[in-house]
């Protein structure tokens, strides 16, 4: 498979990013009806605010809806560049502020889940490839397929019922205990960790199966190559062959693939945060959709999509820089 030069790739990503921003601009405008109705939430019939004619005119002017489309578009792009994502009608706060407030929680559980699923997925994948065809491999394969067949929201609901409601060992929802006076920083950290355990497990499960399968298949191919055969002939210990010889070669492609599956994790994140009422961006997005707070929906949408794309591009670029096989294999 040929790969384009990094500069071309960057150009492609930039074009994609521009397309996404344009879709975001066009969406409320190509749907029949006045975009203002979407901004105030009246389009759906259950508005969260009542707006009189004067305010309407003011809003129309504020959002430049009285201007020609081309001008609206330029103003929209300029606003994005200066970090202005509009104003939430429901929360009565700038959207940027809401996102800055929720992003750390999302990053906390997302990054933890990505690390956990990569470590465990890769570890189990290597083990499975080494035991290829044996009972342990088959068992793991079935288990991984099982986790992939279960949608993240079902797993999250079941985890919540079992561990929070029935056993009562972990908190039901939220990211911290409300109105709690912590006796020390350590107590506070412990509280945060206790709240993030279940959401993180549910998110990890979304990625674990994919990572495992990817590692397993890559490693099975590598373990069949000549240089691994030579390493075996030399009588090297198994773990050195597996981790120093084989995995080292497989790791970079695996990590790149993992980053490309980030989009998958985003979907899981929206469900998991909603179910556990975790105060992250996924939950913010859900609330904004339910309350028809379209400025927030659009803001979260743009921030998440651009982040995912930047990570994808970064990983792909890094991969090309580090791995000479790809650089020369154009």
């Amino acid at each position: 498979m040929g790969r384009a030069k990094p500069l071309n790739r960057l150009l492609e990503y930039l074009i994609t990013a521009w397309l996404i921003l344009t879709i975001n601009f066009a969406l409320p405008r190509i749907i029949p009806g006045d975009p203002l109705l979407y901004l105030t939430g009246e389009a759906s019939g259950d508005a969260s605010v009542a707006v009189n004619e004067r305010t309407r005119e003011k809003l129309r002017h504020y959002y430049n809806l009285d201007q020609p489309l081309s001008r609206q578009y330029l103003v929209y792009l300029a606003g994005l560049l200066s970090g202005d994502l509009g104003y939430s009608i429901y929360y009565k706060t700038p959207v940027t502020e809401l996102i800055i407030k929720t992003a750390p929680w999302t990053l906390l559980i997302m990054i933890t889940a990505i690390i956990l699923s990569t470590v465990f997925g890769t570890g189990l994948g290597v083990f499975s490839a080494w035991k290829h065809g044996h009972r342990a491999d088959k068992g793991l394969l079935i288990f991984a397929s099982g986790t992939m067949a279960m949608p993240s929201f079902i797993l999250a609901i079941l985890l919540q019922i079992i561990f929070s409601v029935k056993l009562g060992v972990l908190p039901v929802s939220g990211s911290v205990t409300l109105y709690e006076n912590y006796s020390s920083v350590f107590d506070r950290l412990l509280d945060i960790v206790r709240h993030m355990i279940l959401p993180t497990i549910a998110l990890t499960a979304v990625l674990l199966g994919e990572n495992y399968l990817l590692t397993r298949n890559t490693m099975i191919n590598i373990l069949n190559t000549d240089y691994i055969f030579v390493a075996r002939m030399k009588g090297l210990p198994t773990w050195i062959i597996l981790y120093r010889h084989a995995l080292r070669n497989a790791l970079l492609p695996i990590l790149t693939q993992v980053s490309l599956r980030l989009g998958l994790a985003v979907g899981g994140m929206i469900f998991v945060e909603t179910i556990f009422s975790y105060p992250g961006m996924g939950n913010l997005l859900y609330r904004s959709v339910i309350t028809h707070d379209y400025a927030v929906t659009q803001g979260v949408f743009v921030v998440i999509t651009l982040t995912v794309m930047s990570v994808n591009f970064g990983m792909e670029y890094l991969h090309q820089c580090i791995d000479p096989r790809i650089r020369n294999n154009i």
Partner: protein
Amino acid sequence: MLWSHLRSLDTSGRISLGILCLVLGVSISGHRISPYDPRAYTGEPLQQPSRQHWLGTNDVGQDVLSQVITGTRTSVLIGVLVGLFSGLLSTTIALLAGVYRGLIDRVLMRIVDLFLSIPRLLFIIVVTAYTGSSISNVIIILILFSWAKGARIIRAQILSLKEQTHIEAAQIFGASHNYIIWQHLLPEILPLTVYTFIQTASFAIASEAGLAYLGLSDPSVGSWGKMFHDIQAYRGVYYTDAWIWWLMPPVFCLTTLLSAFLLFSHSLQKTLNPQVLATWDRQL
């Protein structure tokens, strides 16, 4: 062609195919085997399973079994429709790109890349928020965001087929693009189309259940996701035992159906051209 693939399925493939046929049967005969109207209030709220209500009743006294059966119909309808139209779209685009190559191929593949790199579920949720969530809107949106994977994989198969001697020979003898598409390519990519159909149908069913759970699918259509939504709106039920016979039936049905899809596509995969699927794995 397809028949030989089905016959060479392994045991888990056959079992999962059986489950899929069973689910299809339930969904077709749904209104006949359903004991009650799923919307009628036929009993006391939150009853345990009994002879009148095999799976008990929900918070307003509707029969859970009837709701599960209606949900089966909705899920199968969405899976089949989305799978069919999305498969048609992927096949058409793959043929356009793979047969004509050149600029059209490059443009189409860039579009495929775009669709593959975006977080799908996020797009689906945001677009539904704007277009409204009638069942037809949900189906169209799911089709729109699910064809890209299949287009890529079928195109790869077409490219590898085009290098085979019998197709080269046909070209040398002056066969038209149309002739090659209908006589050679379509029959040979059919199993792969079935494979992408299965994957898309499974994605569509899971996504619709998720959307309905969030309350973003058609509220007038009974579905498994809608049942989850109702349960979640009545969370107190978790503190009694009622959730077991209210929540677990749709959970069991959904995971069983999705597992059957997964196992079936795994088994089918083994009978397909492994090289094309390997390329596909690397490209995603």
